[in-house]
């Protein structure tokens, strides 16, 4: 379950940012997780509950925004349906994932005394 490692990387980054700004606590952490990033939001939330204890994020809510998978032609940008053969129906060029593989830390809200 790599969601544990992901959460550890997430907490390390958030703590680093929060400390650099003298925060006493983090109140909210917002992440974006793509539908085909390989990360399960439920497992991520579960791992977060476990690891946030006794960190600056102890009281911080984790908000996970899910991003849909989208494919488009590399050449002419025509949308290629998810689940279809990943070839452009118009020009035959291979498709490219335009969104849905991201695992991003978007924003944190913290309390600065």
């Amino acid at each position: 379950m790599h969601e544990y490692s992901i959460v550890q990387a997430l907490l390390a980054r958030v703590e680093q940012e929060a400390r650099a700004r003298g925060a006493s606590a983090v109140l909210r952490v917002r992440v974006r997780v793509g539908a085909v990033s390989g990360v399960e939001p439920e497992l991520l939330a579960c791992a977060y509950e476990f690891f946030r204890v006794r960190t600056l994020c102890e009281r911080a809510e984790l908000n996970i925004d899910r991003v849909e998978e989208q494919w488009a032609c590399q050449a002419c940008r025509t949308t290629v349906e998810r689940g279809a053969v990943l070839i452009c129906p118009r020009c035959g060029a291979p498709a490219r994932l335009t969104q849905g593989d991201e695992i991003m830390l978007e924003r944190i809200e913290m309390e600065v005394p």
Partner: protein
Amino acid sequence: MCQSCGCGDAEIVALDIHDKVLAANDRMALHNRGHFAQRGILALNLMGSPGAGKTAIVEATSSALKGRARLGAVSGDLATDRDARRLRQAGVPALTITTGAACHLDAAMVHRALDSFRSAALDIFVIENVGNLVCPAIYDLGQAANVVALSVTEGEDKPLKYPPIFRAADLVLLTKIDLLPHLPGLSVAAFEESLSHVMPEPRIIPISARTGEGISDWIDWITDRLAASSAVPSPQGEQQT
């Protein structure tokens, strides 16, 4: 807030970060990539299910390339040293990266292992990832290419069920094809079809480590990559430690 005693409300500060959660791993992977480039080593991240035939591929590759290219390897393993020992027996300098509870390798683990290969003259470095179709796909290790081993007995639907790892693959080695005659209804074409839904430019080489079938196609693929990796000097070549 009151300046003299610190009483009063704390300020709420929002900070936009907009960066990859695994940015630190990506930086370490870039660093590994520099190591490989500087030494002209082709690094391959070999992934696949438990028992897909990853170690067998490295064994077959080493014997096929004997006298032509020097192989080194690390094997990610939760607890044992079995794979690295098998590879050393096959004449490949190999080490185990014990991952404990982790179901994947990360760039820092590979970097630590690279230290032991400092003085080895190598052309190809195979990173045999932990047997798993989910977790390894997320971590860049600094490889030049991702190779996914998929054995015919796993079934043709695996790419559809585990898209991220196949989307990340530069090559899928369809392994154990000597078993196809025992699997009625399964064909190489069925695997190609399901791959075409998750991999925009599917590249699949059917092989058998048992009979040697297809191994020469795989060796050709490696040789092309080797030529490319030694011809292009990397811009990260000087970021060494």
